[in-house]
């Protein structure tokens, strides 16, 4: 099992490397590993571009699907479920496995590395469903896929909602 997880993590890291420059990869992966202490156990790069949307919703409304941090999210927004764009709702558990995306913030013109985590342990929140798939890929590219239940490794695999947590500015 550990070997398989290692192989999977290696593929995830390679996916990051393929999609970024070496310096960018190191800074990105470093950020991700730093963030891992608090957030993701196995960060996975998720390439993404900002969607064409009205600037206001993209910048100011964290419960809008058009909000810039949600460029590759597929699920219920935790901000509508008792949490926020970066906190899981009370009584849930964050997924130890997650993926990382790059989203463009129109407010400051920067690209940010964000970590998408699922919040688990309760049934579907059912509010603010958001499905954006820029850079998303099918299940055979697991590190880029948002169709699987990322709560699958949790003791309670129920999917509740998703968050998008800033890890840092993306390297050029």
């Amino acid at each position: 099992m550990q070997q398989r997880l290692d192989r999977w993590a290696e593929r995830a890291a390679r996916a990051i490397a393929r999609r970024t420059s070496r310096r960018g990869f190191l800074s990105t992966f470093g950020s991700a590993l730093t963030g891992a202490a608090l957030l993701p156990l196995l960060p996975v790069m998720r390439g993404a571009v900002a969607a064409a949307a009205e600037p206001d919703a993209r910048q100011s409304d964290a419960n809008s699907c058009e909000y810039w941090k949600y460029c590759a999210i597929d699920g219920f927004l935790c901000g509508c479920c008792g949490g926020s764009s970066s906190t899981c709702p009370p009584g849930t558990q964050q997924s130890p496995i997650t993926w990382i995306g790059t989203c463009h913030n129109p407010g400051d013109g920067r690209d940010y590395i964000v970590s998408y985590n699922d919040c688990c342990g309760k049934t579907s929140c059912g509010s603010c469903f958001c499905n954006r798939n820029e850079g998303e890929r099918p299940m055979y590219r697991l590190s880029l896929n948002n169709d699987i239940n990322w709560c699958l490794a949790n003791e309670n695999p129920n999917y509740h909602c998703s968050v998008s947590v800033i890890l840092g500015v993306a390297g050029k």
Partner: protein
Amino acid sequence: MWPKALGAGLALLTVVAATAATPPPPLPAEHLDVARLPPPSPHWIWAFDESINNETDTRLYLYDGDAHRQLGQIDGGYWPGFATSPDHKTTAIATTYLSRGSHGTRTDVIEFTDNSTLALSGEIVVPAKRAQTLPTLYNLTYSADAHLLYLTNLTPAASVTVVDVAKRSVVGEVDTDGCVLAIPSAARRISALCESGRLLTVTLDDAGHEASRKLSTPFFNVDKDPIFVQGIPTATGVMFLSFLGDVYDVDLTAAEPKFAPVWSTTTAAERGRWRPGGDQVGALHQQRSRLYVPVHRGADGSHKVGGSEIWVFDATSHQRVGRWPVDVKKYGSVVAVQVSQDGAPLLFVATENPSLLIMDAMTGRVLHVEPKMGQSLWYLMNP
């Protein structure tokens, strides 16, 4: 004229009053019973409802495309895989339950339903590692001889649990080395899609244990134009559509897969502008070689956007033979399609709002619309 009309009106009132005074005979007493299914029809369809707002309670609705009514339901539990047995008598559902509903001990199980009664007929508890993912026809599959079931696992390590159907027991597990799905062929073969764009084919022995494996050459470009995992069964194997609308026809009749020349559902002018999309991106009438694809105008990243039109192709000549717009404002975009396999085929179309449209598969004429069916119809399966 007026007095005459007045007289006729008074006479009518008299009759009405007399009728009101004599109530009709009472309705007969009813006998509570459980409905029995009529004989099966190729025009039945299983419509999978992900129950998006409460995903621990998914369902498969059985719907009659001729009578235009729901015939029954199978409960699907949490993010299930599903398969119909080769003799069509059984539906298998692979799902996950927690002992106290939303929490508690996890049990993964394959449940069998008798398709003649829709009653549960048995179950097999399997290792708690099955893939909880969006539906395809290859998350759970039967071997051609119906002796084995193959269940896709993802922990996130990828593997396949092999189950002996008759013995109601788990035979073992095949490590698929990161490749996903369990596409069956011959008596004892399964193929899985790999991140490298290859197909891994594992041959099992009679007992269901791995005998050999082989990786194909890459047959699609994972980076430039990935294929949807929602493969479409063909007479000889499986067909995949790519994000840009190319068609990959894979012949699985021999020990090694054969890949037909790739063809496209779009013209050069349409390529990249019109794309397949949704949850079930194609259906094939095998005998008539008719391929149905929901398409939309969109860019990269729009591969889950439902279709505003259904394009119909002759899968042999690769010619488009139909272009059927859908009233998206009224029904929502098309997220799933399936076609019955009989001589007078129906095209079943699930939309995002969600409705189930029944169309004449040869003309595109809408024969019936079942509005607001469940919460989220994401897949359609022939019984």
